[in-house]
């Protein structure tokens, strides 16, 4: 592969390209790549042609919100699509959005909330692009109710590495539709997405907070009450053991229907959705991560988690639910900008497992026990409810997910990766799954157990058809499916 030659040629054609170090969102992995930021389809097509000509690989990147190495392509070309970001149309009466792949959730809600529409599925941060959301088939805190983002995509246009464009929906090119969504950028570049938004009648949700004494109580509460809410998310304090193993706080929310919010119009203004710019009213929030840094160790995080739990327990809903703007409820990861930097130079990984309903109450507490046994305790745990979906390489199951954030240090790296291997075994034995958007540690054999040889082969057959020369690659793809790229 010759990146210099392709860089020169791109430069000659007036297509900007620069050698950059790209990080995963968790900052635990990074690599060097030649980054091109196209603003249109022609540029993407030209990059594909030149990549073919020079024998270099191409990976896609949106806002770089995947925790691990899914949006990196070390020693190759990375197409950063954040500038290919126009909303082509939005139908106020039907809520159908047609947009380019670099459009972010933030751009969508800022434009659409005042018109009475909200993205049907959102991640914990508002910065992912549509292309990234589709590639990872992202879920939200409402996954068991509405499925993943893919369930709300009406159609998309995909450009293959040979420069062809395919229009895909549930009838036309249905196999590609169900594989490219969740296909971690291996089949082509999304160049246009039709997404159906959700009608809202208020800019706020009705929210209840519930404390649970341990993880099994959280599971019981989720299962009992899931029909009564539109969103459920559990925060888990991973430090206590014994009867308090996995204690936490649930936030459960409902949409407000027509006429249920007497301040609906005011709450649907864009400004009513903005997150607070200061913490505790005084501290500029972009400085907060700096103050968090001394606390990012086992002692500090044990104390912070305990304080959060006990204050949350005191503040449980005791009579009336409270109302909260959609953005404030949804985008918890954006409250403290750059908080991940507090984890230090090696960053963090998130290990998220999706386990069938019948096995979750056994598997997830066991994972926490295993963490304690290895003396590596997650600093943050998040619990959610999920359902099956029709996408080929999906992560979702009819069950529960447990996401655990681990600090990576130079001294714990090997032990942490070994811990993930241990947990992989527990999860896969129970029919559980992992998630490309979060993954940094999965082994090829783990992937084979999760998706099965037949499904992986179906996906690979599609890839061979659309990308016969394996032009599309990422660090994640090479790590998890090395057989696809060995010559």
């Amino acid at each position, binding site marked *: 592969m010759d990146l210099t030659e392709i860089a020169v040629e791109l430069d000659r054609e007036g297509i900007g390209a620069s050698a950059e170090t790209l990080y995963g969102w968790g900052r635990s992995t990074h690599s060097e790549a030649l980054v091109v930021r196209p603003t249109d389809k022609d540029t993407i097509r030209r990059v594909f042609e030149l990549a073919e000509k020079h024998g270099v690989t191409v990976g896609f990147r949106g806002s770089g919100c995947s925790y691990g190495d899914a949006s990196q392509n070390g020693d190759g070309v990375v197409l950063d699509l954040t500038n290919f970001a126009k909303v082509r149309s939005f139908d106020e009466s039907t809520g159908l959005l047609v947009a380019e792949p670099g459009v972010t959730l933030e751009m969508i809600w800022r434009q659409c909330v005042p018109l009475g529409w909200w993205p049907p599925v959102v991640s914990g941060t508002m910065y992912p692009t549509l292309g990234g959301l589709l590639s990872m088939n992202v879920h939200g805190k409402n996954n068991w109710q509405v499925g993943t983002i893919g369930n709300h995509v009406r159609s998309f246009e995909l450009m293959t590495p040979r420069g062809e464009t395919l229009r895909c929906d549930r009838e036309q090119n249905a196999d590609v539709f169900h594989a490219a969504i969740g296909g971690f950028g291996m089949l082509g570049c999304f160049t246009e997405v039709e997404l159906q938004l959700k009608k809202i009648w208020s800019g706020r949700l009705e929210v209840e907070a*519930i*404390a*649970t*004494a*341990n993880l*099994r*109580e959280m*599971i*019981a*509460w*989720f*299962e*009992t*009450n899931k*029909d009564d809410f539109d969103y459920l998310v559990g925060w888990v304090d991973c430090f206590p053991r014994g009867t308090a193993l996995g204690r936490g706080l649930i936030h459960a929310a409902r949409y407000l229907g027509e006429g249920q919010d007497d301040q609906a119009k005011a709450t649907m203004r864009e400004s009513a959705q903005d997150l607070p710019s200061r913490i505790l009213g005084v501290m500029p929030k972009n400085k907060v991560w700096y103050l968090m840094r001394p606390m990012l160790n086992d002692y500090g995080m044990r104390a912070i988690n305990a304080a959060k739990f006990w204050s949350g327990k005191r503040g*449980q*809903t*005791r*009579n*009336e639910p409270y109302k909260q703007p959609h953005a404030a409820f949804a985008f918890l990861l954006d409250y403290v900008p750059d908080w991940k930097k507090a984890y230090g130079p090696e960053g963090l990984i998130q290990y998220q497992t999706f386990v069938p*309903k*019948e096995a*979750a*109450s056994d598997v997830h507490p066991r994972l926490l026990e295993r963490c304690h046994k290895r003396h590596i305790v997650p600093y943050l745990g998040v619990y959610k409810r999920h359902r099956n979906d029709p996408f080929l390489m999906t992560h979702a199951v009819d069950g529960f997910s447990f996401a655990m954030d681990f600090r990576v240090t130079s001294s714990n790296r090997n032990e942490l990766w070994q811990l993930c291997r241990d947990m992989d075994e527990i999860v896969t034995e129970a029919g559980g799954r992992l998630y490309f958007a979060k993954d940094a540690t999965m082994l090829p054999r783990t992937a084979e157990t999760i998706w099965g040889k037949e499904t992986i082969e179906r996906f690979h057959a599609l890839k061979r058809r659309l990308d016969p020369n394996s032009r599309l690659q990422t660090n994640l793809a090479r790590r998890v499916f090395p057989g696809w790229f060995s010559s």
Partner: protein
Amino acid sequence: MNKRFERAIVVGASSGIGAALARQLAGQGARVALVARRGDELEKVAEGIRTAWGSDKAIVRTNDVTDVDAASTLFSELVEELGGLDFICYAAGVMADVGPDEYPTDKDLKILQVGLSGAFAWLNPAADYFQKQKRGAIVGIGSIAGDRGRRAYPSYHATKAGFATWLESLRNRLTQHGVRVTTIKPGFIDTAMTRGMDGLFWVKTADEAAASILHAAQKGKQTVYVPARWRLVSLVIRSIPSFIFRRMSI
């Protein structure tokens, strides 16, 4: 007595305190039979328990407690299915909206039937069973509303007062046989019954109340206020002379 219960029946387990209590009993390892009128709601609570603690941990029976003739047979079936019994809680109750100038016999009788007749029907067979077994715990969910006849809900106050007195009698009979009878007097608990009411204070969640109730039952306590500070308030309220109390708008 401070041991964990192994086989339990909760009557009125479809929501509120009863549902939370059923969950916490299962969380401590008990097999729990859940009884209530609303089958769909009951099944949701049971499904939560089964998902969290195992498919054998919850049994469901739909029963309207005002159908007093059915209780005895149902009780025997559940005991057999559970393989014994060491705990029963009667948590069923209703509170109808009664206006200040309203004297509705139909509503009053409903409150009485659910709050007291149903309790007789379910707890009498349990008392008999526990007396013969020489152990067991009976818990009745009364209310601070039973401590004084306020203006607001005459039949509700009377029902809860009657329930507390009846439980006291049971306690006096059964203690000598090793059976503990605990009367719970909750203050304001966040349940469907109280949701959205104005003027509430010291409100506890159903889960917080259930934890206190379970603890009290395990300790074999007699009468427990939830939260405990209501005991003092009740003492004060009960001490107010009637000629003053009737002039107070409470």
